[in-house]
């Protein structure tokens, strides 16, 4: 088993006791709550007449069902209004802080935690959402949980977990031009498989990871779960501390920052830490990467041929055949030139300010293709305001994109933002599962924000490296 890793240290600091099942009872340092997976858990607490144990360590927002257009209350969708009202009541009764739309702090739960400084190194962070792994970018141990576990955390401040193995994934070298964190994680999942991480936590390291800003690290940790790993993390360093220093938590409290910094430094993996597995990937060889199929592991470099199912491992062939039929792609072709109907720039993977800036650099002065419906859904109200202050909203709207209100939106199609029929989308989100974007015949091609921008303009999957960047970021 691993020894001396951040995972070991954070686990040990949060372990309350061993349970009769052999699982450990872990204290949860931050519990993030949203409207879809929590109402049943609050209901179970009411049934048991149990209060929320650590309301001050809990923070809520609304993201999955919230409309990204007209947000006047009551919401036009009755079901969405019911869920919103239920969350409002639950957080009010329990005294849980709520980043609601009126606060100006609302957004996707994995965007608002880091931007408000709620997410910090050395914490255990849970949320009823599999993309909670995002917060690992800060050197936190963060993972998604189900609703019964949400009940556990609300009632006891703890989760029951078994310790897992740690795989270090070292991405060496320097990434090429316009190769982003998204391309790195799609490559990792492609190489290790969608179930390669089951039983593991991923530690991302190496020069290419260290060179990334916090946004890129978040994109990578975000998709750990798509590789089967419930959690992924990057050891905290100066880049992490610079981000934290500016957040609400520390901007006016440098003393607290200094005090906690020694804790943050202490939980980083030791140089001689032992790992259960180590994988090395040459970052300089990664291309802008897109998916050709219906799992995030079915990725390919944009100039590389789509694999023939029979060339894949036996257990992947059947899934690949069905995926190629669904997507209408042929082995041997590349994804370049694959026609798209929708361009979606959003989601907890890629809807932060940096993502929008990079995409805007390819959109400035250009026009969205006539046959494409394109939308930008900022990750949070803060991202939205910051982008508007830089005029990015105008760049996008002048090109023909819709500029919408923050939420999960078309990543999972729980509001009106959905694919129709067999529309194909160029999407900066995280899942290309059949039906994921709201239509069971819809086709999703995952890619980086800049690749989405390029596809929006040309109407087809395009190698962004072939396109001139209008504004240099």
């Amino acid at each position, binding site marked *: 088993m691993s020894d001396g890793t951040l995972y070991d240290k954070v686990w040990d*600091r*949060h372990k*309350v006791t061993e*349970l*009769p*099942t052999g699982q450990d009872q872990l204290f949860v340092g931050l519990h993030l709550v949203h409207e*879809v997976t929590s*109402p*049943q858990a609050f209901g*179970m607490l009411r049934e048991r007449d149990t*209060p929320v*144990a*650590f309301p*001050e*360590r809990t923070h809520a927002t609304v993201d999955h*069902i919230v409309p990204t257009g007209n947000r006047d209350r009551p919401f036009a969708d009755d*079901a969405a209004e*019911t869920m919103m009202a*239920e969350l409002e009541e639950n957080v*009010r*009764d329990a*005294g*849980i*802080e709520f980043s609601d739309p009126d606060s100006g702090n609302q957004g996707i739960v994995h965007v608002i935690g880091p931007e408000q400084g709620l997410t910090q190194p050395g*914490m255990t962070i849970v949320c*009823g*959402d*599999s993309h909670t792994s995002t917060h690992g970018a800060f050197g936190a141990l963060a993972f998604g*949980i*189900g*609703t*019964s*576990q949400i*009940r*556990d955390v609300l009632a*006891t*401040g*703890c989760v*029951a977990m*078994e310790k897992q193995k740690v795989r270090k994934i070292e991405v060496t070298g320097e990434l090429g031009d316009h190769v982003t964190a998204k391309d790195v994680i799609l490559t990792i999942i492609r190489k290790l498989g*969608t*179930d390669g991480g089951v039983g593991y936590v991923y530690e991302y390291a190496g020069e290419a990871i260290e060179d990334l800003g916090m946004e890129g690290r978040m994109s990578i940790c975000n998709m750990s*779960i*798509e590789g*089967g790993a*419930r959690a992924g993390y990057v050891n905290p360093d100066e880049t992490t501390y610079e981000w934290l220093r500016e957040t609400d938590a520390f901007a006016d409290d440098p003393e607290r920052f200094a*005090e*906690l910094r020694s804790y943050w430094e202490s939980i980083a993996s030791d140089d001689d830490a032992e790992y259960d597995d180590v994988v090395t990937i040459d970052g300089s060889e990664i291309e802008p990467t897109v998916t050709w199929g219906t*799992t995030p592991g079915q990725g390919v470099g944009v100039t590389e041929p789509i694999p023939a199912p029979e060339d894949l491992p036996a*257990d*992947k062939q*059947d*899934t690949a055949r069905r995926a190629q039929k669904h997507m209408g792609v042929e082995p041997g072709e590349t994804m370049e030139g694959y026609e798209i109907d929708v361009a979606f720039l959003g989601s907890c993977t890629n809807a932060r300010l940096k993502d929008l800036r990079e995409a805007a650099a390819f959109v400035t002065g250009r026009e969205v293709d006539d046959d494409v419906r394109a939308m930008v859904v900022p990750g949070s109200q803060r991202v939205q305001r910051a982008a508007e202050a830089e005029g990015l909203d105008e760049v996008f709207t002048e090109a023909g994109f819709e500029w919408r209100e923050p939420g999960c939106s078309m990543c*999972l199609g*729980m509001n009106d933002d959905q694919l129709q029929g067999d529309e194909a989308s160029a999407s900066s989100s995280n*899942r290309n*599962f*059949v*039906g994921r974007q709201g239509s*069971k015949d819809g086709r999703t091609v995952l890619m980086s924000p800049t690749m989405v921008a390029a596809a929006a303009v040309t109407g087809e999957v395009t190698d962004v490296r072939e396109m001139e960047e209008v504004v240099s970021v």
Partner: protein
Amino acid sequence: MSGSDADVDHESFAEGEAPAEKVTDVSGTGIPVRGNDIDTDQIIPARFMKVVTFDGLGQFAFFDQRFDDEDNEKDHPFNEEQYQGANVLVVNANFGCGSSREHAPQALMRWGIDAIVGESFAEIFAGNCLALGIPTVTADTESIEALQDYVAANPDAELHVDVENERVAYDDEAIDATVNDAQRKALVEGVWDTTALMGANASAVRETARSLPYVPEEDVPAADGGHDRPTGDD
């Protein structure tokens, strides 16, 4: 907890003795759902999660695989007459990957599933099943495919999922299966209600919280469970 009339050996306890029922074994007829990487969006599409309870989710299990746009039935085991009443689901690799939605095992449970046997399961999904007292039992590819073939040919035959002894028996066969240690212990000893289990350690929890440099003292509740804070301050 069984949504079907098949037999589940849930030994009940008198109140206060143990925090949950014991699930030592599950018997009943099987239903095969073939394919690797079946994600939770397929098990329950997101649009059915716009609800504040889990009631009634059973009818939406695998909905988009079962019905076309005009709500006509498609070929899917969950639609087939011979599997109505089945309670042991037999699946392939990486079942339940993707979203953490507990709505997925809730939908399966409310359709009637009491145990799932497969090649492998995504972690969050398996954890969610455990929280509902549903065993997720694994075996090798060959054994699972043979079991799926058997169930398809013999939909009325009884399967016996022995959680305690890690075996799946059918006909004259017995598959060597695996049940994760913690899961087996939790189910067999009836300690899968983790809220009750962990709630008993409240003072140790407060101690751990206080030992963490990032947790301010005022965030830790008082020993009596009360809280020195004004209510309703969001």
